[in-house]
Each structure stands twice: as structure tokens, then as C-alpha cells.
């Protein structure tokens, strides 16, 4: 009997905290999504059915914001994935100073979205920014581009910042997977006269596939939910053209204090992520991602 209780005893503090401070608020949020809940009118809170969702469907900006979110997530994930993969492949072979090199190149992982956002907002500044200056010096442009004031460009800057920040995570994960491939597999392939490209597609890729799948899944979810870069770099501007779903939630909840509407957005976000995770695991035929 004692044996059965022991593991739960050790887990108790963690589970208690998560249930109280994650589970309970979450249930609250879902309820709130079906309520008229405005912080500006605390005495006027009542259930209003699917009013919030109707408002969401009727919101002229919501479709654009949904589209922005998909572009932001898709391009960021692809960018981080490819660049991370290239960096990891380059780091696979040992060389002198590799540890030191990694300490520098992996640094952005430890950086806050807040400071990364600042760096990119400052670099892409329309008047004083270094990017415009470099482009002009290279003779590519003759007038300053208002990066953060132009629809399309502003979202692109957020995406560039997100890619920059996320390359290390992908590189670290993929590198670890690469290093776990036994070297004799490659030796055998060499003896058989298997070329570099074929080795990559027939040995390396299949070996690291589980890591690629888990990492991409976790990262997609994480990027979808992250909002500090958007908040710092563009604050959704100009006119919501770089707004993403969670950043919009933030501004609805703590800008206009419409908690009910914000919660409805959040429920939509969760549904999208849930469907995505299920589809992703189904398509990739991977069932062990629950193992992290």
C-alpha cells in the first residue's frame, strides 16, 4: 500500500500547484467565454450564450488576425527549422573551440523576447535604423523604408526576430539527435559507395525524424502562443496588420477589459492548437510525442 502512495506523494506539490493555478483558471476562462464579462462593468456579468463568438465572427479584423497568426507561425517555424538544421549539420563534426562557438551561437535561446524585440525594433527603425542604412549603402534602396509602419513589412520584422530567436532551440535539438546516430552506419554506407546526399536522405533524416517531429510540434505551439515580440515590436500595428491571436487577446483583455471576448479568442486558439496537434501526429504517424 505504501508503495502505491509514494509516487503520488512526491508529485503532490507539483500537481496541486498546476491544478489550482492552471486547471482552475482554465475552467474559469472557458466559462468566461460564454459570459458578458467586462472588467469595466463588474456588476453586469451574465451568461450570454455564444454572443462572444458571434462578435468574433462579425469582427472585421478577426479574419485578418487569424491569417496573420498562420503566416507568422508557418514562416517562423519553417525558417527556424531550416536554419537550425543547417547549423546543426555544420556543428556535427568536432572542431577546436566548438564548445566556445556554441556558447555564442546558442545565446539567443537565453534572451528574452522583450530584449530581442527591442533590438529588432531599433534596427528596423524607419529613421535611425541600421537596416535602412545598410540597404542604402549597398545601393539597394534610395529612400528609407518605414518597416514598422507599412502593412506586411511590420509582420515580416516580427517573423525575422522570431526566427533569429528560435534557431538555437532547433539547432540544439537536432544536433543532439545527430550525435546519437552511431558512426558505423555512415562507415558502412561509405564502403557501399553511398553519396553524401543519399546518406543524408536515407540515414540522417530517418534517424532524426522523431526529434524533428517533436521539436516542430512543441515549437509551433510555443510560437503560436507567444506574444511578447509582437507587443514590443509593432503592438499589432499598423491597424492590426501585424496582430496575432494571442496579442489581440492581450489587447482585448487588458486594453479594453473585455474579458469575455478575450476568453472566446483564447478558446478558439486552444481549439486550433488541439486540432493541429492531433492532425500533425496523425499525418506524421508519430505516437510518442507525449513523451516530450
Amino acid at each position, binding site marked *: 500500500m505504501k508503495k502505491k502512495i509514494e*509516487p*503520488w506523494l*512526491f*508529485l503532490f*506539490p*507539483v*500537481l496541486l*500547484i*498546476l491544478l489550482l*493555478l*492552471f486547471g482552475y*483558471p*482554465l475552467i*474559469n*476562462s472557458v466559462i*468566461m467565454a460564454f459570459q458578458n464579462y467586462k472588467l469595466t462593468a463588474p456588476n453586469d456579468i451574465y451568461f450570454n450564450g455564444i454572443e462572444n463568438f458571434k462578435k468574433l465572427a462579425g469582427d472585421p479584423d478577426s479574419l485578418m488576425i487569424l491569417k496573420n497568426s498562420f503566416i507568422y507561425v508557418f514562416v517562423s517555424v519553417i525558417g527556424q527549422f531550416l536554419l537550425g538544421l543547417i*547549423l546543426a549539420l*555544420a*556543428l556535427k563534426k568536432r572542431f577546436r573551440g566548438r564548445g566556445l562557438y*556554441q556558447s*555564442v551561437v*546558442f*545565446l539567443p*535561446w*537565453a*534572451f*528574452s*523576447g*522583450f*530584449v530581442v524585440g*527591442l*533590438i529588432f525594433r*531599433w534596427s528596423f527603425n524607419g529613421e*535611425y535604423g*541600421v537596416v535602412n542604412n545598410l540597404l542604402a549603402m549597398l545601393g539597394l534602396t534610395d529612400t528609407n523604408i518605414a518597416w514598422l509602419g507599412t502593412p506586411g513589412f511590420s509582420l515580416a520584422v516580427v517573423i525575422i526576430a522570431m526566427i533569429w530567436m528560435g*534557431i538555437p*532551440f532547433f539547432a*540544439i*535539438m537536432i544536433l*543532439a*539527435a545527430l550525435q*546519437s546516430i552511431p558512426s558505423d552506419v555512415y562507415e558502412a554506407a561509405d564502403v557501399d559507395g553511398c553519396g*553524401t546526399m543519399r546518406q543524408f536522405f536515407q540515414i540522417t533524416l530517418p534517424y532524426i525524424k522523431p526529434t524533428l517531429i517533436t521539436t516542430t510540434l*512543441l515549437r509551433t*505551439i510555443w510560437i503560436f*502562443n507567444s*506574444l*511578447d515580440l509582437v*507587443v*514590443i515590436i509593432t503592438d499589432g500595428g499598423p491597424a492590426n496588420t501585424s496582430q496575432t491571436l*494571442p496579442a489581440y487577446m*492581450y489587447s482585448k*483583455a*487588458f486594453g479594453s477589459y473585455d474579458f469575455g471576448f478575450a476568453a472566446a479568442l*483564447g*478558446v478558439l486558439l*486552444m481549439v486550433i*492548437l488541439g486540432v493541429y496537434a492531433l492532425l500533425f501526429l496523425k499525418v506524421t504517424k508519430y505516437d510518442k510525442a*507525449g*513523451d516530450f
Partner: protein
Amino acid sequence: MSRKTKNAVGSIIRVVILVFFFLLVVLPIYWIVITSFKASGEILDINNLTYFPKEFTWQNYTDLFEQFHYGVLLKNSVLVSVTSALVVTVFSMLGGYSLARYKFSGKQAVILFFLITQMIPGILVIIPLYIIFSRMNLINTHLGLFIFYVTVNLPFCVITMRSFFERIPVTLEEAARVDGCTKMQSLFKIVFPIMFPGIVSVFVFGFIGAWNELIAGSIFISTPEMWTIPVGLKTLIGKYNVEWGLLMAGGVMALLPTAIMFAVMQKFIVEGMTAGAVKE
């Protein structure tokens, strides 16, 4: 192509790639550091962008401390980050040990539950928490922020700690028990010392998670004496006026502790991050 030239071409490509990524990371960092040492006149000189300060100055840093009271922000950030990271580490050790060493029904469900917490948008939890914290008078307190950071950083840290425990053979613990150690003794004298780098990296995960957090901080904290570093610095971004010099100096100061931690602990942190994802 002969094998030799093929190898040579391969090395050149590799060097080019490595240099590219080095510059990609270093140049933006160079830019924030160099801007922080420029006088504001030089920063906002439209016609003449300098790639190295004409006049090297500590002005932004002294202003940051003397006018913006950065010392207070620093103290608040250290307080919240260290305490929450400590608690996260201890609870992760307990939870991680349980998940690594016991077989019990419901274990898979617990792990799935941790995964699901990673899928939930933080802001969706923050909204109701804001109401709950208001009722409990936890708004605008460090205690509220501490509780929140412990909660959000726990799931990842527990799972990471589990994989550190899994790397240590159970036989080691059993041998200690045979030699007359109690369970606690075998943990404290044998297991924890071996795991020390892992324990420290979990602490670093918890610390960085809290140190870098902006959104919950700016929602839960409102008075300047209570601000953490990102929350305080964000107020320097006005609608029409952005204090770039101060912001860049503040940004550099905010990056320093995490950058040093990462550089020193890189090997272990990387091990910690990958421990769960890559099965050897």
C-alpha cells in the same frame, strides 16, 4: 571529384556556414551594445549613422541607475526569479524522482497533463488569474508574480528533471541501500551529487523563465517600486517617444546575467534541453 577535394569543399562550406551563423548572432548583439554607449545626440542623428560611437559614454548607464532607479528593478527581478527558481527546482526534484523511479497507474496521464499545460496559451490563464489574484489581494505583489512563475515553469522542469534521474542507474541507489543508507541518505549522498549539473540547469531554466517574462509581469504589477526589469523598461517605450539610449543600456543589463549563466552552463543546459527529447 576525388575524395580529397570533396572533403576540402565540404570543410569550406562548413566554415562559411559557421561564420554566417556567428555573424547572424553577434551583429544584432553588437548593435544593441554599441548603441547603449552612444550619447543621445549621436543615436538620433538622422544623417549620420555611426557604426562605432564617436564619443564613448556611460551616460545611458548612469542615467539608468540614477534617474530610472534600475537598482530597484534589478532587486525585484533577482528576488522573484531566484525564489521562484529555487521552489521550482525542489518541486521538480520531487516530481521528477517520482516519474523516473516508480511504475504506477496514472503515470502516463500525469505526463500527458504536463504536455497539455504546454499547449495552453499563457494569456488565457492570466485573465482569470488576474481576477483570482485581485480577490486574494495578490495583485501588485511579488508573491503573486512568484506564484505565477513557479506554476508556468514547473511542467518543463519536472520533465527535464525526470530524464536526469533516469540517467542514473537504479543499481547505484540500491547498492547504497544495501550498504545501510536510508532512502534519503542514498539520495543526498549518492544521487544528488552526481546529478548536480542537472539540478543547476533546472534552476537556470526556472530563473531564465522568470527573469525574461514580460506579459504577466506588466499585468500583475503596477507600481514602479514593484516593477521587474522588463516591466519597468517597457514603460520607456512611449506612444510618441522612445528612450532608445536608456532602453539599449537596460536591455544590455537585462541580457548580461542570462548570457553569463548560459555561457558557463552551456554544456549542461543543452544536455538538459535535449535529455527528454532525444533518447539515446
